[in-house]
């Protein structure tokens, strides 16, 4: 019997170790697994490498991890926003390392890890400072930069609904990095609004098949 459902947020993040590389879904405030990140915060896990598109805003999720000095390094495309106060504070003080990655390269590096590939050549970033020190190859007359895979020890993802096998569907643009991150981590933990019975999700419409998912936890009132 397969049952990936866990009963609490604490169980969902149990065993995530200090020093882990954690992929955190979301784009701006859309699709962020806020409750899972807070559970990680409550658990005391620290020295994290966080891979996420933005660096949090206000006092919640990744911003809270930064505020509490749990983040050693952040890998992201756009750490700056109106409310990215804690990232900027820690970055200015030299307390958090930033690896800035073009957004599509960030996503594709995780996909490469998920797909078992040793990296890829992309025209994105060629002849820019973000390609400094990287191997360049001319392919079909165009300069391409070699990018390495980016696997996670853990992925924290938010979806709308899950069954006990961990099959997932998402809501509108909250899908964003979820499917790629779910496939790119050794341990994938998903928070959902609703559990449904096995067979209830339309198999033609399942976005993330359960093979990529290890734990699902229900959050909220749905």
């Amino acid at each position, binding site marked *: 019997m397969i049952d990936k459902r866990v009963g609490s947020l604490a169980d969902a993040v149990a065993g995530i170790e200090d020093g882990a590389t954690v992929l955190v879904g979301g*784009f*701006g*405030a*859309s*699709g962020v697994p806020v409750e899972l990140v807070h559970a990680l915060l409550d658990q005391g896990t620290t020295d994290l490498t966080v891979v996420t598109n933005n660096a949090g805003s206000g006092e919640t999720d990744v911003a809270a991890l930064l505020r509490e000095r749990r983040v050693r390094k952040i890998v992201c*495309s*756009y*750490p*700056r*926003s109106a409310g990215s106060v804690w*990232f*900027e504070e820690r*970055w*200015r003080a030299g307390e958090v390392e*930033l690896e*800035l*990655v*073009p*957004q*599509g*390269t960030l*996503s*594709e590096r*995780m*996909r490469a890890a998920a797909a078992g590939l040793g990296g890829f050549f*992309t*025209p*994105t*970033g*060629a*002849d*820019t*400072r*973000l390609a400094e020190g990287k191997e360049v190859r001319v392919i079909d007359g165009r*300069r391409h930069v070699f990018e390495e895979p980016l696997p996670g020890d853990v992925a924290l993802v938010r979806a709308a609904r899950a069954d006990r096998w961990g099959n997932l569907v*998402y*809501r*509108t*643009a*909250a*899908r*964003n*990095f*979820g*499917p*790629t991150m779910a496939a790119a981590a050794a341990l994938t933990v998903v928070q959902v609004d609703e559990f449904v019975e096995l067979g209830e999700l339309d198999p033609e419409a399942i*976005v993330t098949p359960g093979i990529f998912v290890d734990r699902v936890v229900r959050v909220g009132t749905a």
Partner: protein
Amino acid sequence: MSGPLAVRDVAGRIARDIPDGAYVNLGIGLPTLVADCVGEDKEVVYHSENGILGMGPAPAPGEEDPELINAGKQPVTLLPGGAFFHHTDAFLMMRGGHVDVTVLGAFQVSETGDLANWATDDATHPPAVGGAMDLAVGAKRVLVLTTHTTRSGEPKLLPRCTYPLTAAGVVDRVYTDLAVLDVTDSGFLVREMVAGLTREDLQGRTAAQLAFADDVAVLEPGQRE
């Protein structure tokens, strides 16, 4: 009417160059004004890097869905026929040449089509690149919407960019408040200029050497199509 165009008028001019049926990604900020100017007779499918095709206008007040946002994190809507997909596919569309047109802002554009629009050398703020590089290298046509000079009068169209590059050799056409210029193998070619401006005036506000088309047209104040 003469003198520099308002940004909305430049957006209106760009809208005339968006073909019916095009898949279009508008950069964050001012380029989103172009969508307001594209005529109702055209069917244009707007793409957003966070996984949306068929993006519609902003919702009515009170109708916002906090998860249905555009690249600038503003609430949007989905039109009938629209689709959601994940980030890796969104960037596959951008990088892989599936998006027909992008409109981007710029700090600087060089005469070889280099684009600088993601960073200045201001070290007091953390760098942030987002999807700018993927879009610049991948869209079939890269259009730039910008003022001709900075607020303090420094030229933005240069022989070489001095700010960090977003991508090299990618810009097809630049629309400023003074002129429409194509990037050609031999540099900037002026296609249109606002009325009341001489070629010498325009060259005086441009660091790159300008060439002029045989039939330079008047850059008309744009309007909603």
